[in-house]
């Protein structure tokens, strides 16, 4: 069911890479793909969650409707502030007569979320040679897997990729990355376990430049945002990368587990204080986890979501589509 050509066009657009000839009708394909992508996001759930079926059923809007909506947003981990703001926006629309029936709320909400998050499709332009992408996040958020999948996608588009295995702490993290590098044909720059992560990152960028690579992906060790020394280490990795190549890293992406609750705000805030973040990757957005914390983070810190992972398979990592995501928030988590 996955059509490689379509995917390529979508990723090429994300990375701002010229697509090889056969992609003349790229625009139409892209449209087709976005709708399919929405489908893939909502497929496991199909139905709107039972709790919300009442909210969206045709009928008059009452006070309870807003309460139920607020609860649904909180239940998706959007947090109190973001939830109230969204409900207020919709209530205003209702008072102005732009929303009359309950059945219009879903569309109105998707609209409001889309407007807030990213009206424009996200970009990770691969321009500088090499373009350096630093991937950071807490333990277990899915950094290594995401780096592996990104390497695969970039390789598919004919990009030469170097991966820097700067997670030298977790046992076997380097081996895990080596397997991904092998699968995608990317080159791996590694040192032994316990090596200085700054040195690995530096080596990766220098060797990427020397080999004429297009992209250098740097995987870092997971760290809780409250661990001061480890955050200082990250700061150093970031600085060292900047010394290895001008303007690097070009992207610093925070990987956020979609099951994360309000702690996600603290993660985005403290990681952002240590290294300037350029975007968020939400992983494990599988239907039960709605990742609403990304909405709260975007609202508070203005950080765009660039990629989302909706499952374990390679094709489950996708460029973020705010409209599809907004709809997904209201889908039921029940399988089948």
């Amino acid at each position, binding site marked *: 069911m996955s059509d490689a050509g379509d995917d390529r066009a979508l990723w090429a657009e994300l990375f701002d890479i010229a697509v090889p000839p056969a992609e003349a009708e790229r625009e139409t394909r892209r449209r087709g793909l976005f709708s399919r992508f929405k489908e893939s996001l909502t497929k496991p759930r199909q139905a709107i969650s039972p709790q919300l079926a009442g909210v969206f059923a045709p009928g008059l809007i009452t006070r309870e409707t807003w309460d139920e909506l607020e609860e649904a947003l909180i239940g998706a*981990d959007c947090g109190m502030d973001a939830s109230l703001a969204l409900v207020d926006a919709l209530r205003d629309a209702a008072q102005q007569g732009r929303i009359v029936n309950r059945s219009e709320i879903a569309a109105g909400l998707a609209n409001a979320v889309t407007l807030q998050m990213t009206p424009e499709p996200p970009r990770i332009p691969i321009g500088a040679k090499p373009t350096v992408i630093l991937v950071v996040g*807490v333990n*277990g958020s899915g950094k290594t897997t995401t780096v592996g999948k990104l390497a695969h996608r970039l390789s598919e588009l004919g990009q030469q990729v170097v991966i820097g295995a700067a997670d030298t702490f977790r046992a076997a993290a380097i081996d*895990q990355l080596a397997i991904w590098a092998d699968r995608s044909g990317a080159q791996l720059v590694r040192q032994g376990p316990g090596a200085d992560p700054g040195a690995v990152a530096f080596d990766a960028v220098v060797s990427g430049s020397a080999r004429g690579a297009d992209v250098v992906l740097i995987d870092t060790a997971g760290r*809780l945002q409250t*661990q001061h020394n480890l955050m200082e280490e990250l700061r150093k990795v970031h600085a060292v990368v900047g010394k290895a190549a001008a303007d690097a890293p070009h992207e610093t992406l925070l990987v956020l587990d979609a099951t994360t609750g*309000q702690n996600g705000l603290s993660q985005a805030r403290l990681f952002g204080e240590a290294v300037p973040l350029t975007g968020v990757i939400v992983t494990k957005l599988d239907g039960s986890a709605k990742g609403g914390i990304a909405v709260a983070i975007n609202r508070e810190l203005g950080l765009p979501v660039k990629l989302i992972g909706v499952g*374990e398979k390679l094709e489950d990592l996708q460029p973020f589509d705010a409209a599809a995501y907004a709809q997904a928030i209201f889908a039921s988590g029940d399988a089948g």
Partner: protein
Amino acid sequence: MFDTLSDKLQSVFSGLRGRGKLTDADIDQAMRAIRLSLLEADVSLPVVKQLTGAIGERARGAEVMTSLTPDQQVVKIVNEELAKLMGGASVNMPVAPRPPTVILMAGLQGSGKTTCSAKLARYYQQQGRAPMLVACDVHRPAAAEQLSVLGGQLGIPVHREDGVADAVGIAERGIAAAKAAVRDLVIVDTAGRTVIDEAMMAELVGVRDAVHPTAVVLVLDSMTGQTAVEVAQAFEDAVQFDGVILTKLDGDARGGAALSVRAVTGRPIYFVGTGEKIDALEPFHPDRMASRILGMGDVLSLIERAQQTVDVDQAKDLEKKILGGGMTLEDFLDQLRQIRKMGPIGQLLGMVPGFKTAMKGRDLQVDDRQLDRLEAIISSMTPSERRRPDTINGSRRQRIARGSGTSVQEVNQLLAQFKQMRKMMKRFGKGGMPPMPPALGT
């Protein structure tokens, strides 16, 4: 980051004191503050509702309405209701009457199963058991390797089968291998899965039925949000887990997910993971979790750690010395080292109730490396200098600075502070205490 619930309630009730009686509207406002506080801590919405219902009912009772300190009364009720929901006492993980005890680890991807499996093995190894690890995560690349590395560090055998995709088979053979090697505890690590992946859930059920675990343990990330209930319910429906291990609790997550899972499934929490290191696993204390969820610090854990690391007799001797004004830099170094044995200083301070609130907005980052420098400076002194800091003249200061890789200013600062501290302690000693014998070294 968060206001504690006490702060919030204080502001709700401030201005009401002295008015005598609280109205229903006041209580409603307090309930909203509680609701917000619990939601910020990621307690799931249905559980929040259940809790605020119970708390509200009690708060409307006479004890609060007529109290002079209604905020404290309400906090007390909240604490009690939370503790009630968390379950009273700590619960131990079950042990099989006939060895080996088999523990099956289950959980979402990235919750920390593999690390936890190793920590658990180490914990029981310390208690004199003979654990064995079985690597059944056939999906994540290098997961078996990770377990092998951790097992190797601990000297605990790991059963792994590279290139085999059949998790059930590996589990069966792992148990057989453990029996053959007379290991009395087998910890089976499984692949992380999402709850909507039926094939993966079926695999987990297959492994469970093959190994007949003494306990199925759900590994839960303490940063989990509202989805915790769904996750727990899905694992409960599929494999009926017996208890929970809560991971990554060393961060600033309030861990409301723990409360939700407990409230919905009734399953106890056995352990909490509190750090990167392999020994960072502690038994779970329900009452302390309640304080954490409310953002109120954890003074009991702090005391416990102090008791584990501080030698009581030594401490008594030192107290005498300090109060007599006879403390030397040697004693100071001992003290410093003992405190540091208890853990990173920032983590310790976080356990002090009210500390986080008091420091809010201020950049008080207690850096362990600052303490490293103190240690280095004192260690660069000769024993006689440590006992008699007054003898440290200019050229000695230069030598100490060079030796410790610091500057003369830093050495000066340390000596000045030490002098002042000793003076203060002496005054303490002379104050409320009976006169002490004249101390040596002054």
